[in-house]
């Protein structure tokens, strides 16, 4: 995803029904929460979501691993 200066990664969680658990469905890059909300809703529009929420990646604390949360591959973790 294109990265401009002053942008942050936001993690997106959503559920289709109230009785579902929130699932991590993706990430967007945005300079502020308003744009993160707009991008998340407009990009991840494959479902009719009951609820969608976003949080900056920096807000997440690693619990059992030393690498950054949301690291996808061992190469990225190094």
């Amino acid at each position: 995803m294109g990265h401009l200066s002053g942008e942050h990664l936001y993690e997106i969680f959503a559920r289709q029904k109230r009785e579902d658990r929130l699932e991590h469905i993706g990430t967007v890059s945005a300079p502020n929460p308003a744009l993160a909300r707009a991008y998340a809703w407009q990009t991840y529009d494959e479902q009719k979501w009951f609820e969608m929420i976003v949080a900056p990646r920096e807000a997440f604390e690693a619990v059992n691993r030393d690498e950054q949360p949301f690291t996808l591959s061992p190469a990225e973790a190094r």
Partner: protein
Amino acid sequence: MSPINAAGFRTADDVPEELRADLKALLLSLADNKRLLGMRYAEWLLGAPTLEAGIACSAMAQDEWGHSRILYAMLKNFGEDPGQLEHQREADQYLNSELLDEPPGEWTGLVVLNLLLDAALSIQFESLKDSRFEPLHYKVRKVLEEERFHFEHGRGWIARIAQTFAGREVLEEALTPVWISCLRWFGVPDGELIARLADAGVADAGPDELRARWLDRVGPIVHQAGLGLAEQDEGGAWRSTVELDWLDWDGSRRRSGGGSLDSETLAAVRGDKNRAMLMD
């Protein structure tokens, strides 16, 4: 004042003749503005500052086109041919804001339309959610659900651009004319289209109240961006620091008089290059 308990209109045929002409003009004005705004969003599908912004423009274009199609289809009930409305009118028959006559040159110009004009259209839509013209009810709700994210997009980008001194300068230059134009779009306080529709209970507010609602929505964002166009009074309401004048205002087209769509915009919005398929 609005006849709150007046009987609702289930179809266009139930609407008295004079009121019907006004309602038709309102629906056509909303349809034309949404169709053209959708086109402006689509022009940034490629070339927006980030991939996400391009995707957002694509989504907003689709939303606006969907809304305009709903409105053009509703006009069939008013004796209009939607195909003719969409593909065969001349530039001066469009009831669009002068802000959409030609493309904004830069990204800042687009996000200013996104924040200010899109919000003005939404405020006008909101005024119809309990309209005496009942076919609007469900449709207005659907439109407003989607518009929520257009507003987030506009305000997010305004905040982003206003972060730097240079950005604020560009923003002020792009935003000021649009600010004035949107305030005028609701019309003179008395006697025009929106005032008559409010009196008849088709809309729940007249021009001044709609302006006040629009200012409450966009005023805080413009103020936070460091622009002096909006200020808050002691009661907490937002007001414009710019005095409006009505020179060259054409109330019947809800725009400044004289101008109309440029030729490229007209050809694109009518789909002139697709004429061969329209003959089918």
